[in-house]
């Protein structure tokens, strides 16, 4: 395989990996629902980053469409899960206020 492509893939893939690890660390170490929700979204972004890096096959070739489709699916699922989690969180806060 072309070393230039491999270096690009590794560079972007490792940045995605770093985002993934930072998100997990923040998720474990910090209290607070909203902060954890943001941390989970950072984890998701890291995973998407790795998938997009894997899809890259050099500038001459079209990228692998399957990881791209997976990322597109993943973004939508992440958005809807985040929206549901926000609604849950708001509901919890309301209940705590009333209690």
């Amino acid at each position, binding site marked *: 395989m072309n070393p230039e492509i491999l270096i690009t893939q590794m560079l972007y893939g490792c940045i995605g990996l770093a985002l993934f690890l930072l998100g*997990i660390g923040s998720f474990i170490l910090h209290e607070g629902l909203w902060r954890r929700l943001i941390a989970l979204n950072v984890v998701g972004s890291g995973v998407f980053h790795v998938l997009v890096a894997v899809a890259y096959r050099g500038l001459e070739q079209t990228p692998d469409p399957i990881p*791209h*489709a997976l990322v597109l699916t993943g973004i939508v699922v992440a*958005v809807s899960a985040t929206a*549901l989690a*926000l609604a*849950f969180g708001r509901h919890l806060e309301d209940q705590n206020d009333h209690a």
Partner: protein
Amino acid sequence: MRPPSLLCLLVPLLLLALGLSLGWALGDGLKGYSGERLAEVALELVPESGATHPVTSVLLNFRGYDTLLELAVLLTALLGIWSLGPAAPPYPPPGLVLASLVGWVVPLLIITGGYLLWVGAYAPGGAFQAGAMLGAAGVTLTLAGHPTGGLPAEPWQRLLAALGTLVFLLMGLGLMALGSGFLIYPKGIAKWLILIIEATATLSIGVTLIAAFLGGRPMSLRNRSR
């Protein structure tokens, strides 16, 4: 409350170990494999799929199940949000500048959404991008004080939110009844089937995103008059 200090020390170390092993796995996966990749198979079949853009053909044809279930996930999340309580009270009405800006931006967002939907057949774009544009238009309207973000009355909201999943599912079952298998499109009409699915999915995604942003069950007419 601060977590205990042992945890603060242990977690980064474990994460570092995890990162090193995952990094090694990534490098090994990228350079160690020399067999046939899925990409070649997919790109070869793109001309037969009814869309000329590879990502669209993967999403709507080769991995149609994924997209169907994804629409179902969106619908389920919306049902969860609606079951938790009523929507938040609307934002206060905007000043003159914001109101006229919204009057410009919202039509542009809707037109861009329609363009992205159409262009998805042969270039980056498609139902999700177009749905996101419609969602953004609704969010802009909500922030400018519109109580329902431009959404119609509650029964229509329910219908529109379910439409994408419904049409996709009925299409799959109909194709099965005609003997061609669940979500396996006949070659000649694949383009039109994909366009119908994408158009309804765009509407559903847009409505779902706006309703999720409103954050609760739509207020029925009876409640609003009170």
